[in-house]
């Protein structure tokens, strides 16, 4: 901060701030009611609280039940497997796509492709799930029609355990592949063109240029994106909720969908909150550490 811009005395500052407190009031109330009040409500994890209503304090019984339930380990496992594969697949494909897109010199073509591949990101998960539900349908879906034309048997992609995970990962990729390139393309456009000119004079071909100039410049962005994605490893939710079904719960049920079913549908509010607290605490630790690491690496925090 600039020393010349010294702050006014407290009294004067308060007087000047007063009007702005009124400006901020509705927002402050919003955060109080819909963020802090829910945080306060987490106490129900220590209560017996189900459809019968709010019962007695039962200490950590809900947490004991959680850690002794095999279903809990299954949903944590599913979350980590789906998220892990998604992060690896998504990052590698998005980086390759960004590098290749950056090589395209026809501006109109490049812009058209960008327009097309960014689009799915703005469609809701209900729409994305519906689109794939329709084209993958075992009866009328175009994919199965093609399989049958080539003499195969129709496959119920979203209803079979062996198919659900790869299909789910593909759908995630389909939605986010374009949007993911935005940050890399921004980083690529920030590279000094003089570096490439110098490399050209030295006789380096395009692939050498990519190896010695482009990729090293992208590494900080890659690391930041990787760490940031890892910190959100537990956050899969809406995409699973619209794509899974009871037939594939064993391979698809993640922490949040489990919490949703246990809590909102079965009414075991206390138990579901306990599982939610487990998730919230791990997610908090991950985000804070990720922010610290990125700050160290890039000198600039995300939050």
């Amino acid at each position: 901060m600039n020393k010349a811009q010294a702050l006014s005395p407290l009294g004067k500052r308060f007087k000047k701030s007063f009007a702005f407190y009124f400006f901020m009031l509705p927002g402050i109330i919003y955060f109080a009611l819909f963020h802090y009040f829910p945080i306060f409500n987490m106490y129900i994890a220590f209560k017996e609280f189900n459809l019968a209503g709010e019962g007695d304090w039962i200490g950590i019984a809900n947490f004991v039940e959680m850690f002794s339930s095999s279903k809990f380990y299954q949903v944590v496992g599913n979350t980590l497997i789906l998220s892990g594969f998604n992060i690896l697949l998504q990052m590698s494909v998005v980086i390759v796509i960004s590098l290749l897109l950056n090589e395209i010199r026809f501006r109109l073509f490049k812009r058209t492709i960008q327009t097309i591949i960014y689009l799915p990101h703005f469609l809701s998960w209900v729409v994305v799930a519906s689109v794939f539900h329709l084209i993958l349908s075992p009866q009328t879906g175009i994919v199965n029609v093609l399989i049958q034309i080539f003499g195969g048997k129709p496959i119920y992609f979203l209803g079979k355990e062996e198919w659900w995970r790869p299909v789910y990962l593909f759908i995630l990729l389909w939605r986010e592949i374009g949007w993911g390139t935005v940050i890399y393309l921004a980083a690529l456009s920030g590279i000094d063109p003089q570096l490439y000119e110098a490399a050209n004079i030295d006789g380096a071909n395009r692939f050498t240029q990519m190896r010695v100039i482009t990729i090293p410049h992208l590494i900080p962005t890659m690391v930041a994106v990787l760490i940031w994605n890892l910190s959100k490893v537990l956050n899969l939710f809406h995409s699973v909720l619209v794509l899974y079904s009871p037939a594939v719960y064993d391979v698809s049920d993640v922490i949040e969908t489990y919490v949703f079913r246990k809590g909102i549908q079965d009414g075991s509010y206390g138990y579901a909150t306990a599982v939610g607290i487990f998730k919230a605490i791990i997610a908090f630790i991950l985000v804070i550490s990720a922010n610290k690491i990125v700050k160290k690496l890039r000198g600039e925090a995300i939050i």
Partner: protein
Amino acid sequence: MVEKLSFSKGQRLRALFIIANIMFFILIGIIVLVPLWKVIADSFDEKASLIQFRMLPADFTLDAYKMILEQDRLYRPFLISVATTVIGTLCSLTVTTLFAYGLSQKELLGKKIFLTYVLVTMVFRAGIIPIYTAVSKLGLVDTLISVVVIILVDAYYLILMKNFFSTIPVDIIDAAEIDGCSPLRVFMQIILPLSKAGLAAIGLFIVVNYWNMFFEYLMFINDTKLYNFQVKVRELVLNADTAGMEQTEFSTQTLRNSVVVLTIVPVLILYPIVQKYFVTGVNLGAVKE
């Protein structure tokens, strides 16, 4: 001579790469567009359930869209979507920009406290059950107020807006204040007109968020009359077996496709504008406190 030959060989490789690269992106474009195109085509296809490979309607019809216009159970959710999106976006923009403008004041007393107050909510989330409990205790379950207010202020957009306001030169504001303008008048008549790009950027994202909302409806709303279009689409397409669809003279498959199309259309209309501004959004994101 040898050198010249290798040079042209290099050019050939380069040309080959350029062509292969373009083909690759055409393929990617097709993979992204074909699923959407197929749904649009089938929404106009009287025989959408016909098992046959085709990319255009076998029998063109507008019946599905007419049916949506005629049946209360179908157009009502659409109107609810429109209403909550319009009201939600206006409320959200008002509350967010007012809060952001306050936070952007250099001399605001307690600025750090307010910023922390917001940032905490970005890293620690209570989770769905405590949020449900809170909304329930506030008596908002089964009202549309719940789905409008639940995403009223997004901490991320708030910080973006605050950073945007911080870039406006202080001299302009000082001059207005000397002329005797109240802070509210300065905000309405000077700050907001100068912030059109920022407002458009976050406004469009907010519109998309309200339009695309579905989970909050599942959580807070039991009265099926209050469902929005996304939830209706989920019911018709994803939970088709349990939804108890009445059989009509034309294929219900056509209707399924057409409701999906109707959910996409508003996004498609807004999309070119969104695209123009999301770069602003991303750039704003780079300006950190």
